[in-house]
C-alpha cells in the first residue's frame, strides 16, 4: 500500500526550478534513500512534503489525502515527522523538553487547564516524561539520560542528532524524514546511527523512512530503494546496486563524459 505519493510536484524560486515535476511514492514499511549531488533539491523536496514550502504545482497524497498547501503543523498532525540538515533544536531548552515538545500532536491542552487544573496538567506531563524516558532508553543510551536536564546547546554533535531523532519519534509518526542524519558523525557514530535506524524499524515495522544521506554505507546498509535527484529532477529509482551501475547516476555524481 502506498503511504506517500507525489504527483508532478514542482517549486520555482524566481526563475529557478528547485524541484521539477517529481513523481515519487513510498510503500508502507519501506526505507527509501534519497541521494544526489549538492543542490539537487533533496532538502527542498523534504520542505515541500512537510509544508514549509508550498508547491507551485502538483499534489502530495499522504494516506490517500491531498496535503499539498496545508500549513506545516497540520501536516505534522497527520503523522509526518522530520529532522533537519543543520540541526534545529530548541537550543536553550533541555533535551527532555525538546522531546516533550515532539509529543505535541497527541496533547490536548488549553490555557485554562494550564492555569487552574494543575493536577490534570501535571498528570499528563508525568506520563509524557515516562515516555521520553523510554525513548531515550531505546535509542540514545544511558549517557543521554544522565544529561537530559542539560541545555541541548551543551550536548555533543552526535547527542544533538540523537535528541532530534528522538523528538521526531516522539510524535509517533507514520512517515519519518531524516535529513543527513550522519553529517558530522565519525565512522563509529555512523554505525551506531545505522543500528538506531534498524531499531526504529524493529519497534514499529509499519513506519516509513525517507533518508537523505551522502554516506553511501548508510544507504547501502539500510535502504531497500534509492531515488536519485539531479537538478531538481528524479533521474533514477530502484535498488542501490542498480543505481551504482546506472550511467546517468554516475554522470550526475562525477560529471558527464566530455
Amino acid at each position, binding site marked *: 500500500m502506498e503511504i506517500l505519493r507525489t504527483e508532478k510536484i514542482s517549486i520555482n524560486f524566481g526563475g529557478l526550478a528547485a524541484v521539477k515535476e517529481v513523481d515519487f511514492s513510498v510503500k508502507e514499511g519501506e526505507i527509501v534513500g534519497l541521494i544526489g549531488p549538492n543542490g539537487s533539491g533533496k532538502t527542498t523536496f523534504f520542505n515541500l512534503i512537510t509544508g514549509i514550502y508550498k508547491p507551485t504545482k502538483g499534489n502530495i497524497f499522504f494516506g490517500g489525502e491531498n496535503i499539498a498547501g496545508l500549513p506545516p503543523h497540520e501536516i505534522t498532525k497527520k503523522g509526518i515527522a522530520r529532522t533537519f540538515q543543520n540541526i534545529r533544536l530548541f537550543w536553550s531548552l533541555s533535551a527532555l523538553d525538546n522531546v516533550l515538545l515532539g509529543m505535541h500532536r497527541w496533547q490536548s491542552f488549553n*490555557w485554562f487547564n494550564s492555569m487552574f487544573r494543575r493536577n490534570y496538567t501535571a498528570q499528563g506531563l508525568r506520563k509524557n516524561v515516562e515516555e521520553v524516558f523510554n525513548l531515550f532508553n531505546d535509542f540514545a543510551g544511558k549517557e543521554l539520560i544522565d544529561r537530559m536536564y542539560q*541545555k541541548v546547546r551543551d550536548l555533543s554533535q552526535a547527542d544533538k542528532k540523537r535528541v532530534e531523532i528522538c523528538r521526531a519519534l516522539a510524535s509517533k509518526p507514520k512517515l519519518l524524514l531524516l535529513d543527513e542524519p550522519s553529517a558530522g558523525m565519525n565512522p563509529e557514530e555512523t554505525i551506531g546511527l545505522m543500528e538506531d535506524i534498524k531499531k526504529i524499524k524493529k519497534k514499529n515495522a509499519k513506519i516509513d523512512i525517507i533518508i537523505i544521506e551522502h554516506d553511501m554505507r548508510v544507504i547501502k546498509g539500510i535502504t531497500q530503494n534509492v531515488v536519485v535527484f539531479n537538478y531538481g529532477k528524479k533521474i533514477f529509482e530502484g535498488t542501490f546496486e542498480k543505481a551504482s551501475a546506472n550511467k546517468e547516476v554516475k554522470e550526475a555524481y562525477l560529471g558527464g563524459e566530455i
Partner: protein
Amino acid sequence: MVDLNTKNALIGRRPHKKIWHFLTIIIVESFIFYFFINFLTLKEVNYNVILVILSAILFIILQRQKKIYTTIVESFGQYSIFSIVFIILLLLTVPFLFRENSYLLHICIMCGLYLIMAMGLNIQLGSTGMVNFAFAAFFGVGAYTSALLAVNFQLSFWIVILAAIIMSAIFGLLIGLLTLKSTGFYYALVTMAFQIIFHLLVNNLQFTGGSGGISNIPFPTIGKYSFGSSLRILGVDLPYQSNFYYLTLIIVLFSIYVAVGLYNSRSGLVWNAIREDEIAAKCQGINIARGKLEASAIGAVFGGIAGPIYAHYISYISPESFTFDLSVVLICMVILGGLDNILGVILGAIILTIIPEKFRVFAEYRMLFYGVIIITVLVFRPEGFIPKRIRQYTSLAYGKGK
C-alpha cells in the same frame, strides 16, 4: 534519577532535619523582608547607597558559597508551601509597619501593580520572545475602560474590572492579529507604533478627556464600606491606602499563581518552543499563530487587571501615565530580573520600583541612577538577577505526586 535523600546519602551528607529547613526559610525570608522594609524607611540617602552595595556583595558571596546556596534552594524546594505561607504572613504586616507613613504604603502598592504588569509582559517577552513595547497601552486600556464606565455609568468597581479584563484581552488579540506576520525587530517596531498611537489617541479624543484625563474616579466599595475610609484591624487604625494594599496583594498573589501554572504547563513549553525556533516548532505540530495570540491576550489581561486598580486608587488618570517610557521601564524590569523566570521578574519589578523612589532626592539625576543600575547588572549578570532555569520534572515523575 535519584531523589534528594538518596543523593545526600551518596554524597555522605546527613539529610537535614525538618526543623532546619523551616528555620532556613524563616531566616532567609525575614532577612529579605527586613532588608526591603529598612530600605524603604531609611531617610538618609548615604545609608541607602551603602545598603544597596552591601546587599549586592552579600548576594555575590552567597552565590559563590555553593554549600549555603544549595541548602537554601533545597529548603525552599522541599517546603515550598510553608515558604509561601510565611512570606504572605510577612506581607500582611506591611500596613501596620507603615501606618504613620502612607507614602511608603503608596510605593508598596505601585510595586504590586508594576509586578502584575511585569508578570504579564514576561509571558510575551520572556516566554514567547515577543519584544512588546506596547504594554503600557494594555495597562492604559484597562485603566481607561474602568474609569470611563465608572464615571459615566456609575458602575461598581467589581463590574468595571471585569469589563477592563475583557477589553484588554480584545485589545491584546487585536495587536496580536495585526502583528502575527512580524517577528523579532519588526515586531518590536510595530508595537512601538501601537504604543505611540494609543498615547496620541487618548490624548486627543474627546470622550477620554484629552490631555486633562479623567478625574473623580470613585473609590471601590464593598457594600457600604468604601475603600476611601481608613481600615481598622485589631483595634489599629490604618490609612486608607491599606485597603488598596491588601487588594493589590491578593491580585499579585493570584497573578503569580496563574503565571506559575502557565509556566509549568504545556502552554509555557509551547511558548518557549516558539521563542527558540519557529520553523522547528511548526514541524512539531505547534500552531504558531494560536500560541502567539494566546500569549498576546493573556499577557494583556495582566495589564488590564492592574489598570483599574491604579485608576481607582489614584482616582485620576491622564495620558501621561501610559506613555512609551512606562513600556520601556517594564521591559527593563523583565530583562533585569531574568527573562522567563518568575522569581526573577518579581525581584526585578520590586527593585526597579523602589530604587528610583528612594533616590528622588537627586531630582533630575534620578533617571541616571536607573541607567547605572541597568548597565551594572547587565555587565555583571547578563542574564538578569535570576537567569531562566531548566524545567525540572523530578517531583512530577518520581516524587510522591498526587
